[in-house]
């Protein structure tokens, strides 16, 4: 498959995401598919941002394993990423400030850009425009069409007027022409399909799905990585006729959404782990009063405040255990960006049909990475099912009972404002009419039946949801088991494994509650070897799977360092497991270097970096250690030595040279 992966590295505030967006939209308008992933930090300015954008003629399912071109906006990016650029690739950088101080692979072109000189004709332009120069050069090297990018810039800056547009296009051109004059293209031959596709994040897909589904109320409190939904919703509230309300905290967010859902609008709210913890009590309320509300929990690295800008799938236990007591609720974990759209629509329908809270579990990677989606997969007209609603009621039908005990467990719902259906809903236990049975009317028999009525809805809902299916060869040697947002990367890993002769199939779960225990058991029973793949430390989904089916997974690939999975790494680990290699938790060489980088950044000036690294006996540390030379960034002269435990990762000693 014809594809390229571009990396852009720099600091927060460097405008990296904007440049990537321009490139992605250019590719998309040409008819290429795109997938981006931004590895950023919780800091407003500075820090290290590493954005990868993968473009291909066919659909790409992850950021992949490759790096073909690098735009480095600071020295750190060169040092860390230039060596990753594969033969045939290029390293672009601002030659006024940076230098390639580290060996690159064979046949990698270094492209120093005389930024100041190239920008001179445009007068005083903001420094972030260096990106546009680099982008221009890259367009040439990648064989992309200049004019398409020019129209993207024109659209992007339309609201700023012609002068700004011209300036941007001019700067882009300067970069493009500079590359044409001094470098040869990297040799990509694209077949541009010219099909235009929207390029959007999971958060945007949730938002658009909600709009299509008739959502009229969105409440939120800002929290990474869920804030993107608030931003999008606030920006589009007027156009879409949606009340978008930032509340004082997540307690309010959840309860205001429940109030709105009860009153009869399609209501949604979203947050991340810590905010969701604050919503849990309210979710039980929604379950008890049988109010339809959609909650989105976008996971990030935990526990607690954790690593707010890093991805993880470790909130499953929390979502599953949200609120005290047994009550009906549905949990959905969308698989990819398109599925975010679908899941939002589905969630609103399920919420109203079964009158319960629906929780969508996403994660930072799914919610924040942008990718191209087929426009026909996000239609304006979607199925809408508001469930059994009572819009009129006359005395002949007897008294209206909000919680009528029915065989299905679903009781027809009347909204406040309707005549003859007056009722009170309560978080206290109640009878069919809503009259409390928590106080003087306490009644064990009525309690049993209403508890059963509520839970019955789950059986019905399960029948509504598609069962999990095995994808790939039925007689596979190994089955990769996952849930939620890792579907794409696992799919690519399976493709790589199959291509390399390991017969692999994939079992991926989207519906976590209610759970297709029967169907899953049937599948798992016949799997030769299952490997669970999850971005958390304890295998929360594997545990859920065993709880539901009695079948655990045979092995696990767990990742909890905050970075997303890559298909090649998964494939390699699968091969290792099949070969019987034991998983080691020791600090490896690359990690030792990372730990040394941490030391340098915290305690030393910017001009140092890790140099030679050797493994040695512990000599009193109770474990072997990595001995890491810290050297001068350019000269390579030794500044001192660091000892890092191989097993624990502890930084034992730092010995400066003098």
């Amino acid at each position, binding site marked *: 498959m014809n594809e390229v992966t571009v990396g852009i590295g720099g600091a927060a505030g460097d405008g990296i995401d904007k440049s990537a967006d321009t490139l992605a*939209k250019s590719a*998309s*308008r040409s008819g290429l598919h795109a997938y981006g992933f931004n590895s950023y930090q919780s800091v407003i300015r500075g820090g290290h941002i590493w954005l990868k954008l993968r473009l291909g003629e066919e659909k790409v399912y992850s950021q992949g394993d490759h790096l073909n071109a690098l735009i480095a906006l600071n020295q750190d990016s060169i040092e860390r990423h230039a060596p990753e650029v594969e033969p045939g690739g290029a390293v672009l950088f601002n030659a006024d400030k940076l230098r390639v101080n580290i060996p690159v692979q064979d046949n990698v072109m270094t492209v120093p850009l005389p930024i100041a000189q190239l920008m001179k004709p445009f007068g005083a332009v903001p420094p972030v425009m260096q990106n546009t120069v680099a982008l221009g050069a890259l367009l040439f090297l990648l064989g992309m069409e200049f004019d398409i990018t020019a129209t993207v810039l024109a659209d992007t800056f339309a609201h700023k007027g012609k002068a700004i547009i011209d300036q941007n296009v001019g700067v882009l051109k300067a970069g493009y022409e500079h590359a044409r004059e001094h470098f040869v293209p990297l040799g990509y031959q694209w077949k541009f399909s010219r099909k*235009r*596709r*929207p*390029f959007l994040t999971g958060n*945007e897909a949730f938002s*658009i799905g909600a*709009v*299509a589904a*008739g959502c*009229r*109320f969105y409440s939120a409190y800002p929290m990474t990585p869920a804030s993107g939904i608030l931003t999008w919703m606030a920006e589009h*509230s*007027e*156009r*879409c*006729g949606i*009340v*978008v309300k930032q*509340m004082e905290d997540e*307690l*309010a967010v959840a*309860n*205001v959404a*429940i*109030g*709105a*859902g*009860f*009153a*009869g*609008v*399609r209501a949604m709210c979203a947050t991340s782990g810590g905010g969701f913890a604050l919503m849990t009590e*309210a979710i039980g*309320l929604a379950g008890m009063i049988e109010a339809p509300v959609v909650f989105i929990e976008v996971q990030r690295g935990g526990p607690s405040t954790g690593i707010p800008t890093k991805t993880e799938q470790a909130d499953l236990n929390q979502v599953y255990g949200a609120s005290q007591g047994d009550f009906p609720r549905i949990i959905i974990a969308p698989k990819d960006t398109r599925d975010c759209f679908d899941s939002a629509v589905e969630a609103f329908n399920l919420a109203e049909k079964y009158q319960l809270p629906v929780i969508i579990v996403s994660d930072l990677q799914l919610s924040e990475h942008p990718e191209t989606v087929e*426009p026909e997969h*996000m239609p*304006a*007209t979607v199925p*809408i099912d*508001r469930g059994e609603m009572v819009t009129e009621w006359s005395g002949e039908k007897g008294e209206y009972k909000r919680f009528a005990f029915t065989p299905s467990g679903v009781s027809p719902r009347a*909204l*406040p*404002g*309707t*005549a003859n259906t*007056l*009722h*009170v*809903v*309560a*978080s*206290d236990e109640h009878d069919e*009419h809503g*009259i*409390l049975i928590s*106080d*003087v009317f306490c009644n064990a028999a009525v309690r049993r039946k209403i508890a059963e009525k509520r839970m019955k809805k789950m059986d019905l809902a399960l029948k509504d949801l598609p069962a999990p299916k095995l994808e790939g060869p039925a007689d596979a040697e190994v089955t990769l088991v996952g849930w939620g947002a890792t579907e794409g990367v696992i799919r690519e890993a399976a493709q790589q494994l199959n291509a390399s002769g390991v017969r692999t199939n994939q079992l991926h779960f989207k519906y976590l509650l209610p759970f297709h225990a029967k169907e899953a058991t049937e599948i798992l029973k016949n799997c030769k070897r299952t490997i669970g793949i999850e971005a958390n430390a304890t295998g929360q989904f594997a545990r859920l799977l065993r709880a539901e089916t009695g079948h655990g997974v045979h092995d696990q690939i767990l990742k909890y360092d905050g970075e997303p999975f890559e298909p090649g790494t998964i494939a390699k680990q699968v091969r290792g497991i099949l070969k019987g290699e034991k998983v080691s938790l020791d600090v490896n060489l690359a990690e030792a270097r990372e730990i040394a980088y941490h030391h340098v950044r915290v305690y030393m000036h910017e001009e140092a970096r890790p140099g030679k690294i050797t493994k040695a006996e512990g000599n009193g540390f109770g474990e072997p250690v990595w001995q890491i030379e810290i050297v001068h960034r350019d000269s390579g002269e030794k500044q001192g030595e660091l000892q890092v435990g191989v097993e624990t990762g502890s930084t034992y000693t730092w010995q400066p040279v003098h």
Partner: protein
Amino acid sequence: MATIVELPVQNFEGIVDPDWCPGCGDFGVLKAVKTGAAKAGVLPKDLVVVSGIGCSSNLPGYVHSYGFHSLHGRAVAVATGIRLANTDLKVVITGGDGDGYGIGIGHFIHAMRRNLDLTYVVMDNQIYGLTTGQASPTTTKEARTKSTPNGNVELPINPLALALVSGATYIARGYSGEPNHLSDLISAGIQHKGFALIDVFSPCVTYNKLNTYAFFKKRIYKLEDDKTYDSNNAKTAMEKADEWGDRIPIGVVYKNLQPTYEDSEVAFKNGPLTKQSVNVDKNVFGGLIEEMM
């Protein structure tokens, strides 16, 4: 303003008898809420009574209207959602001092600065009734309660003063021993456009032996009796809010018309949200997709 057609209070009579202790102040408040709604001419079907959890918060179960008996401390947030979803509804919040000024104080203060058209009736008995007598945020200093057997050491909250500095536009105090006066306060609160707080002395006869009917009877006086009192003056309102001791005022302490939250919400331009179609306009939707290309 539309003319108000008063309704018979019987329209609001609930099925179930309150489970409050005989003599509980909340009986008077219940009566006043029903009468207040009737006086304000709200139809039962258009009234939603929202509460949290507590003895006082059982109130919605005793009114023939829509009701939402929510979580402890969350009534104001739930009510906000109901009101925003359907601005054709009148939303009256009823609850306790613990519910509203203790665990729920954040929602209370933030709701006031929004000036949403809500009416909040707090049955302030200066104690946690339902949990059998612990100190509440309005419990008198030094009072011995189940959780403060050596005497309460915290300064009580002053709800009226808090409301004054937080942007409520109708601030009143009532007394459950004066249900007629109280029903007028509630009726006016319902009719007021904006956030109305009515703090009500509603004695807990079982657990509060300090702030009893006798205690209030001796002290309260009506602001309405002083014809010179100007409820539109924040400064004198603050003085009245601070008045506590031998004489304690009840009545409308402060009132001021300000733009409401509803006035500035663009999504309401086509009426209440619940009355709008769930189908999205295809052109609008097409534009959203186009933006991302």
